[in-house]
């Protein structure tokens, strides 16, 4: 019986964990609760995904008001996949965060940190699960507000400015999304996304709808940090506490991407986006710009965390590149890369968090020779770096392979070449780490270091292992992504 209520429990359980933490005011308890709650969300998400993996749809009417009058949770193969991803990362990072947060956040703030952490999780899961346009905005704000706070809890004072900039950009983005949803609402009279989609044909090329599309695209792209709108991301990632960087890098932008896909394919419909408008070409241009410019900027960074933050902007470019093909293969590639990049970046930032824990900073000038004293951490970073490049045997290869396939399918061999060239830039920035870690003499400060605590190392390596495992056994990820892509293209809603 209770399985009927999984869609809502998935979101509400982390949500009520937050006030409980505030009442308890105890850091250790809060950590335990955060871990348990993330784990339970993972279990529920897996159960949900198992149910919808065959292409069926679960609809849950909150308050027993039938949609479109009430708010509906709607799980299909696309967001089922995403729910698993988000809760998986959340669980791993929750275990990881204990030592990391203990070192980076003042003790009396621990319970506040975990309160924000579960709220952010609840927000992200809520965005993924909801079938209502305005409810999406509300949960977007829950996750955004909590992530602003999480970022501002970083040790460096620049974290404050980074958080402020993210707040401004994020709120502009959210307001744009509200304007977009509002225009859709004014034209259709409904807020339910599925209902909206049913009422759009016939008016889909009127001016308000096109304007709504523009506002939604810009707003969501601000949130997902697509190239010209990415300015908030590098600082936010670089100065946030390590656990936060790992969590947000692996989930927040991915959820925004899902929102983009949801609006594009499930609400507006393929034909409006790609046939009536040159969205494909725009996305293509921006994606390529993201890949090349952000990768190049990454190469010149002094701080390893910032380097990989810029690399995130570039990798987001690959994902949107997959979307821009508007083909089954392209969309599959995008969704696979969404999953794979989450694993890779999660692993990377978790390992860097280990370095930061021991060393205090991760600037290139400080980490010379670190491989001698932290061999496991360094090797993990190299493996994850290989995945960023797309070396066979890692998840990165799988997604690049599908991207190249999609490019060739579209008859654009030059794009395939560009994708490979983009990977070469990744070789350069990953090499910078290898050079510093393996080929420099350790300084006195570095020589005294040890590996990070077991809980951090083990969870980080779990992610690295996942990067390799899913690189070798692709049945699960490709299968899930292909199902999701087919669902989107088939007008899943």
């Amino acid at each position, binding site marked *: 019986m209770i399985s009927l209520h999984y869609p809502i429990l998935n979101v509400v359980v982390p949500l009520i964990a937050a006030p409980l933490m505030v009442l308890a005011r105890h850091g250790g308890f809060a950590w335990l609760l955060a871990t348990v709650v993330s784990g339970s969300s993972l279990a529920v998400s897996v159960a949900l995904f198992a149910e919808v993996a065959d292409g069926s749809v679960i609809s849950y009417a909150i308050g027993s008001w039938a949609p479109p*009058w009430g708010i509906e949770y709607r799980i299909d193969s696309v967001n089922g996949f995403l729910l698993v991803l988000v809760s998986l990362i959340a669980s791993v990072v929750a275990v990881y965060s204990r030592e990391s947060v203990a070192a980076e956040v003042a003790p009396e703030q621990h319970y*506040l940190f975990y309160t*924000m952490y579960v*709220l952010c999780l609840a927000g992200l899961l809520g965005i993924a699960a909801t079938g209502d346009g305005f409810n999406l905005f509300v949960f977007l704000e829950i996750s955004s507000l909590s992530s602003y*706070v999480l970022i*501002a809890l970083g040790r460096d004072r620049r974290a404050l400015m980074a958080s402020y900039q993210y707040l401004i950009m994020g709120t502009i983005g959210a307001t744009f999304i509200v304007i977009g949803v509002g225009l859709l609402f004014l034209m*259709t*009279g409904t807020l339910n996304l599925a209902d909206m989609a049913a009422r759009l044909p016939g008016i889909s090329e009127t001016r*308000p709808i096109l304007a709504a599309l523009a506002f939604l695209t810009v707003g969501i792209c601000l949130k997902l940090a697509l190239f010209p709108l990415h300015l908030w991301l590098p600082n936010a990632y670089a100065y946030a506490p390590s656990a936060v960087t790992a969590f947000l890098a692996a989930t927040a932008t991915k959820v925004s991407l899902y929102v983009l896909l949801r609006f594009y394919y499930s609400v507006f419909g393929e034909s409006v986006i790609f046939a009536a408008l040159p969205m494909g070409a725009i996305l293509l241009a921006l994606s390529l710009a993201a890949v090349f410019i952000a990768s190049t900027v990454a190469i010149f960074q002094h701080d390893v965390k910032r380097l990989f933050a810029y690399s995130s902007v570039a990798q987001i470019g690959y994902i949107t590149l997959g979307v821009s093909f508007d083909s089954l293969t392209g969309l599959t590639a995008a969704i696979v890369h969404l999953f794979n990049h989450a694993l890779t970046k999660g692993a990377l930032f978790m390992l860097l968090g280990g370095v930061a824990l021991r060393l205090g900073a991760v600037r290139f000038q400080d980490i010379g020779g670190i491989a001698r004293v932290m061999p496991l951490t360094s090797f993990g970073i190299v493996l994850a770096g290989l995945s960023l490049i797309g070396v066979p045997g890692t998840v990165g290869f799988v997604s690049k392979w599908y991207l190249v396939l999609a490019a060739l399918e579209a008859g654009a061999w030059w794009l395939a070449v560009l994708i490979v060239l983009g990977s070469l830039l990744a070789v350069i920035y990953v090499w910078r780490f290898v050079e510093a870690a393996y080929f420099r003499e350790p300084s006195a400060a570095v020589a005294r270091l040890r590996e990070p605590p077991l809980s951090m190392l083990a969870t980080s390596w779990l992610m690295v292992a996942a990067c390799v495992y899913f690189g070798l056994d692709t049945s699960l990820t490709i299968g899930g992504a292909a199902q999701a892509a087919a669902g989107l293209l088939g007008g899943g809603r």
Partner: protein
Amino acid sequence: MIAVVTIVIARQRNLFAVVILFGIYSFLMATVLVALDAVDVAMTEASVGAGISTILFLSALHLGKGIEMKPLHKPFLPLMVALATGAALAYGTLGLPAFSDPQAPIHQHVAKRYIEDGARETGVPNIVTAVLASYRGYDTLGEVTVVFTAGIGVVALLRRLRSRKRGDKP
């Protein structure tokens, strides 16, 4: 009137005046909302915009210089961005149904049931309350959570500072 105040805010560099003007702006907005029959919203806007926001701004201003520096960068690019947004909005809104058109989709679809059956189904004559608390009650739970997040977030941001002051400052 609102437009005039907005433009004055944009030109004014004394932050104190800006904040007070913002309060006035909120009150004007509230009157407009009453004229548009949105009494619940007007009440909230008056208490939030003119009340809470102004108090918050004033508390924050206590620390600042009060006078804004002349902006260093050229205002050309921001103006273009703002105008582009406005143009997109204008483009979109021109296709919308005209003001007070009872045939517009928003009056015909979901809202119709709220007005016709809301009071009977929920036993609450104020339909805004009925929709807010029942039909879309989950949004309101989300809204309360947002408020909660902000409250705890402010605690997290401002409390830490005190412990720092006492202890480990270099």
